[in-house]
């Protein structure tokens, strides 16, 4: 039987980051990936990612920043599109819009307000979240410093943060701006990838959280995801990490609450004392570990962990290079959002609540010459049935026809949350391996009893997006999980 110090299940970006950190310390590491291609869901990211500077420093990686100017265009049915220019995070400029002067001013003010709050949240984003009642000094200190950071905002800002943090985005937008396109644009960032509508409480928290992890309100960043993936792959190669693709872990064998070995679908059993699972928490616990080794309360929490995905991905090849009607070609390199107003988003969300397909979905897309790649929402994950993909395509087509004329669709592929679940083994096909809502964040991510990357099973750790700080290509989950494992091994 082969034997490794540490086995990492799943070759997503977090798994590879963890492998890099652990192999650097001289551990014999094996990464097992189900698919041919490494990187998992991060291959889906069209935009640039926010990769944490701490991760780059820890791994000693240098990747070139993308210095291109970034644009976000909010499409409007009357073809009076709104275009924003993004320089870094803070510097957002409205290039063209139909909105009034005061609306523009208030929009920028609102963004600056969210930015201030997001920066406050950011300080706890990249650390191990404190565990409640652990009694450990570092945990208590972290809780205190969290409170202090919020208090240091000043009386007025602290009150405002506490006012909006549980609020829905629609209320705050309607208090400040009147232009529908601008409202839709910000709502898009608050609800995409979640089970929230613009009027659902907690959508502002989601916006702030996204902004904090990505360091950008529109999730447009400076690092190329693919060059990051290449760099960590190189580090793994250099440190002799063994990577085996096209192999699936069927089961984690446990004896006396300690990790013993993993069983592959090939029938092979590989011995190890430590495992980091990059698989989502639900699959890890219910399928790999098995309910027999876990307490019923814990199983209950695992079962109730919300992982219903709502976003489908579509890739469309057009005959000719794509142009958007009534929009300058220099903005084509940016991101496009079609969520024309709050009501539209809310209606799309209503269908999702009843597990139906929204006939008027929202779109977020990128264009690369004649290729278009879009996130469509809300397309709910379905249990025991499948979506009519033709219908999804025709719905998307109806929207695109308004903006892309004199061009033919040659081919298209659609991946619904169900497809994503099958392909990447993610429960519910959820982007972030579980809803990013207040009861599933920080020390409660994924749920009580499984925080701080550790699990009830000795030697088993989690590093997927189902752990703090959640989804997005940051690499933080992988680094923190690896550090926790090394710390525990030291203490033994």
């Amino acid at each position, binding site marked *: 039987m082969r034997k490794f110090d540490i086995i990492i299940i799943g070759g997503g970006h977090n798994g590879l980051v963890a492998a890099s950190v652990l192999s650097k310390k001289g551990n014999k590491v094996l990464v097992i990936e189900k698919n041919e291609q490494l990187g998992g869901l991060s291959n889906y990211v069209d935009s640039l990612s926010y990769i944490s500077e701490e991760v780059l420093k820890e791994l000693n990686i240098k990747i070139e920043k993308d210095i291109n100017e970034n644009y976000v265009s909010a499409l409007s049915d009357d073809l009076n599109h709104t275009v924003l220019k993004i320089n870094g995070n803070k510097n957002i400029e409205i290039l063209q819009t139909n909105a009034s002067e005061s609306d523009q001013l208030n929009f920028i003010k609102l963004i600056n307000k969210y930015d201030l709050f997001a920066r406050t949240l950011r300080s706890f984003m990249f650390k191990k979240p404190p565990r409640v009642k652990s009694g450990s000094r570092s945990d208590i200190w972290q809780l205190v410093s969290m409170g202090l950071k919020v208090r240091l905002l000043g009386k007025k800002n602290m009150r405002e943060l506490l006012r909006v943090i549980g609020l829905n985005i629609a209320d705050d937008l309607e208090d400040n701006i009147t232009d529908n396109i601008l409202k839709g644009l910000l709502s898009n960032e608050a609800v995409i990838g979640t089970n929230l509508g613009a009027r659902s409480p907690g959508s502002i928290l989601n916006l702030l959280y996204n902004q904090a992890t990505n360091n950008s309100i529109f999730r447009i960043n400076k690092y190329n995801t693919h060059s990051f993936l290449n760099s960590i792959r190189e580090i793994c190669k250099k440190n002799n990490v063994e990577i085996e693709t096209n192999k699936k872990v069927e089961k984690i064998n446990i004896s006396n*609450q300690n990790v013993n070995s993993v069983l592959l679908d090939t029938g092979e059993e590989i011995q190890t004392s430590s495992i980091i699972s990059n698989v989502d928490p639900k699959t890890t616990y219910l399928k790999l570990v*098995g*309910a*027999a*080794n876990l307490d019923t309360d814990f*199983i209950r929490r695992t*079962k109730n962990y919300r992982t219903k995905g709502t976003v489908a991905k579509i890739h469309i090849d057009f005959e000719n290079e794509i142009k958007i009607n009534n929009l300058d070609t220099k903005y084509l390199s940016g991101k496009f959002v079609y969520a024309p107003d709050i009501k539209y988003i809310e209606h799309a969300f209503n269908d999702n609540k009843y597990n139906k397909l929204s006939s008027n979905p929202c779109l977020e897309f990128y264009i690369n010459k004649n290729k278009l790649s879009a996130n469509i929402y809300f397309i709910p994950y379905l249990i025991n049935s499948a979506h009519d993909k033709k219908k999804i395509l025709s719905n998307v087509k109806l929207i695109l026809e308004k903006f892309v004329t004199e061009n033919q669709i040659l081919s298209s592929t659609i991946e619904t949350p169900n497809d994503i679940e099958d392909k990447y083994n993610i429960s519910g096909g959820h982007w972030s391996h579980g809803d990013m809502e207040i009861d599933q964040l920080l020390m409660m991510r994924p749920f009580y009893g499984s925080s701080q990357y550790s699990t009830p099973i000795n030697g088993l750790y989690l590093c997927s997006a189902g752990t703090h700080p959640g989804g997005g290509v940051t690499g933080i989950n992988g680094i923190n999980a690896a550090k926790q494992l090394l710390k525990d091994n030291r203490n033994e």
Partner: protein
Amino acid sequence: MNNSFSFTKPLLETPFHERTYEACYNNDWYRWAGYKIAREYSNTELEYTAMRNTAGVLDITPMHKYDIKGADAIKFVDKLVTRNVTEIKSGQVMYIIWCNEDGNVIDDGTVFCFDSNHLRIFCAERNLNWFSDTAIGFDVEVEDVSDTIAALAFQGPLSCKILNLLNVKNIENLKPFYFDDFDLNGCKVTISRTGFSGDLGYEIWCKNEDAISVWDSLFKFNRDYKVLPAGMNALEMVRVEAGFIQPNADFMSAEQALRPNRMRNPFELGMGWLVDLNKNYFTGKKNLVDLKKKTLTKKLVGLDIQGDKPAIGSVLYDKNKKEIGIVTAGMWSPSLKSNIAFGYVDKDHMKIGSKVFAEIYHPEELEYKKIWAECSVVKKQFFNPPRRHKVPAEI
């Protein structure tokens, strides 16, 4: 459309109701899991005396009954409970408790093994939710069969004799904590030698349609033996004498307690003997291993109290009048001629023979008499006659 509705839905009636209603002179009903059960038929002491001297019949139909069927039935129960049940044989009954992840007791009950693919759990509280969540990942189906089975407890020194007179073949050779199928007055019934009275006694499980016939046959020899139907008040008396504790009376079920410090682990309840830490993983094992190493801060013990006034709801003190606990159940025991109780005491007074004091408020004609009674800590099992365990049973 059916537009009729009422504000109150009357309590359900058990299959024995036709008879219990006739017998219930006081018309005093107790609410148990949505059913009407007699609290007192005519006189609690008389019903108690029947159970201790001849036999008493208790309608225990509202007990929750869960069928566990499937290839993993035994594995599932083993994961659920703190005892090792992997060795259970067909026809055997085991007393079980189950805990939550913190090692706090949720409920107790009995498990009946029909065969390795079919077990049945009987308990006082609703547990379907907990069982179903525990069943995730096991090849079992948990079904609530409470409404399909009628049940009587037939408890008392003459219970075996009367069943024998009723031509229930070989009943005297049924061992304690075993069950079998029997023929009773032409009805197919399951009889187990179990009960809540701490005496010789049986529990009879039958189909709903056979209920009346089974009830009637138990009173067939009443000219000589004076079998009485017994209510919940009488049951409360015998179970305290027998040392049996009850969820939400002597301890809060961990699934129902709102305050975390009100939950109790098996060691605090004196049920450590039911916890097997060497068996396969079960819910709560991790914490129970830690708890076993710690010294207990409180424990439920039996109390032998000075005087004859029951210490119901009393607060317990040490000799320096420092509060150390509370009485959960107390009574004057007519059989033992002593004043007994269950109570929680602190770590300095857990040992058998320790002295504590109870402050008893005894109502006497519209005034309270305040009594400062000395109590000695004793074993919880106050009443345990040899006939309870004897095989063959006395006929």
